[in-house]
């Protein structure tokens, strides 16, 4: 494929896919190690009610109110789940199940009740996004990367997602040591003065920010998949946290690139005309990588090797 086709049609979705995958996989490592993997699941389900409420309040489908609505819903969900766990003495899994299904149901109901026929706002979009539509119309080929005028027409999702990735990476780099100690041995972390409660909350909020920034581009499924699959596969490749994060980033990039390529061109190779969902394919590929790591990874078993 020539640059004239690749750059306008495929480069941007692929880059966005990579940014989403890595931005979710990095905090996902800590969530998986802390046995909070399903927080990602809960967050991605409450994004829908968040954007519906934002839409009802502003009356328009615009980016920033929706991102704030989604982020607000994620924070509300996390706080309410924690409150139900502590105050109701309910195990976290069940508390999550109660809260995110109820919030999701409220979102669907609000959507049905309000008149959204005139705008593009639907459940399917929130679930699987539309990575393929993020094309760069102003580009004519590789040379456009150096063309200021063409760059101005870049889909806004790309810089936004890149900034999110930078933010997530900076958070993890800055709080690397406290995160590591408190995940490994919370009691010890407290005795050296780490405030494990606020730190854990901050981690979940950072994960929520990554999820919210990502859902707009890719929908919430690949968000959940990227939170869990690359870190889980990476855990089976190494016994060092530093290496685990690197592995997870590599797996995330491979899933994004290969998933997008397969979705866009796979059907063509099979002689079919249309493409299939890139978000779904990226999630599927991350699952295949996890399956391979679970079968052949050098450190796949507990205790051994």
């Amino acid at each position, binding site marked *: 494929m020539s640059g004239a086709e690749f750059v306008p049609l495929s480069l941007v979705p692929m880059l966005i896919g990579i940014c989403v995958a890595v931005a979710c996989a990095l905090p996902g490592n800590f969530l998986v*190690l802390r046995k909070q993997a399903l927080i990602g699941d809960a967050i991605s389900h409450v994004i829908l009610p968040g954007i519906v409420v934002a839409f009802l309040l502003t009356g328009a489908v615009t980016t920033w109110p929706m991102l704030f609505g989604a982020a607000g819903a994620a924070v509300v969900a996390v706080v309410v789940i924690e409150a139900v766990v502590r105050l109701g003495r309910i195990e976290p899994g069940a508390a999550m199940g109660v809260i995110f299904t109820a919030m999701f149901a409220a979102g669907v109901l609000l959507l049905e009740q309000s008149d959204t026929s005139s705008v593009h706002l639907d459940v399917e979009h929130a679930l699987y996004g539309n990575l393929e539509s993020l094309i760069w119309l102003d580009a004519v080929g590789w040379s456009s990367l150096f063309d200021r005028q063409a760059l101005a027409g870049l889909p806004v999702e790309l810089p936004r997602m890149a900034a999110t990735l930078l933010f997530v990476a900076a958070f993890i780099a*800055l*709080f*690397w*040591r*406290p995160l*590591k*100690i408190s*995940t*490994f*041995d*919370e*009691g*010890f972390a*407290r*005795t*050296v*003065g780490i405030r494990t409660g606020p730190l854990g909350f901050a981690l979940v909020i950072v994960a929520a920010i990554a999820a919210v920034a990502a859902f707009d581009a890719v929908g919430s499924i690949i968000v959940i998949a990227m939170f869990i699959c690359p870190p889980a596969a990476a*855990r089976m490749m*190494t*016994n*060092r*946290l530093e*290496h*685990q994060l690197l592995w997870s980033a590599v797996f995330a990039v491979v899933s994004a690139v290969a998933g997008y390529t397969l979705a866009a061109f796979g059907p063509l190779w099979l002689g079919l005309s249309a493409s299939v969902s890139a978000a779904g394919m990226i999630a599927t590929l991350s699952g295949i990588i996890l399956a391979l790591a679970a079968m052949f990874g050098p*450190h796949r078993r*507990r*205790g051994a090797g």
Partner: protein
Amino acid sequence: MSISLAAEHGKPLVDDRAQSPLAIRGMTVSYGQKPAVFSVDMTVRAGAMTAIIGPNGAGKSTLLKAALGILTPLAGTATVLGKPVATQRHRIAYVPQRASVDWDFPTRVIDVVLMGLYPQLGLLGRIRATHRAKAAECLARVGMEDFAQRQIGQLSGGQQQRVFLARALAQDAELYLLDEPFAGVDAATEKAIISVLKSLRDAGKTVVAVHHDLSTVAEYFDDVFIINTRRIAEGPVAEAFTPRILQEAYGGRLATAQMDAIGASAG
């Protein structure tokens, strides 16, 4: 220091918190509606090795955790040299019960020891060769230098305990708190740990350990703190570790023969 029996109420205690490396006042901790520790005072003597003993469920570990702020007490305060524990954490090293740790965590033995240096490194301070050398030296002091590259979950219980002691050594603290350091460890580890603790004491540090083996109290420790929900007694082993006091702490759970043996060893 004189022995103070809880039964002998009525004399005001001198407020000697300012000198003590760990002073606990009025500590009450409750799980649900039943206090596990009730209104306990404790004054640790500087430069001594103190054992916290008492029957199962007497609140030994709970007292330590509440003093450190790992658990939130219902009432009570803990101070280090007269100042709140929260501001004095750099003076304290804590070796938790092994159960509190995620053994499946992707980390090597040497990384665990390096964690002891994190407080002084701060968020972004670089780990230099001197830090690595220090961690290796601490590991050598507990006889674990050959295991530096192993994943922590692959060690035996005793070996894990030694690694956590090495991490505490790397913290360069003045006060060492250990929660059941000898629980479920082999004899060689027990010997290695006690000799490290004694060397700390000889270097002027203070050591407090939750302990459950009454037969070794007199051999290992200088002072003893006996608790059963309330403080039963506190003081040098020769004075506070007596059959009468143990009877009060353990009730009928201690056989007479056992008591005699303890009486003889403590005497």
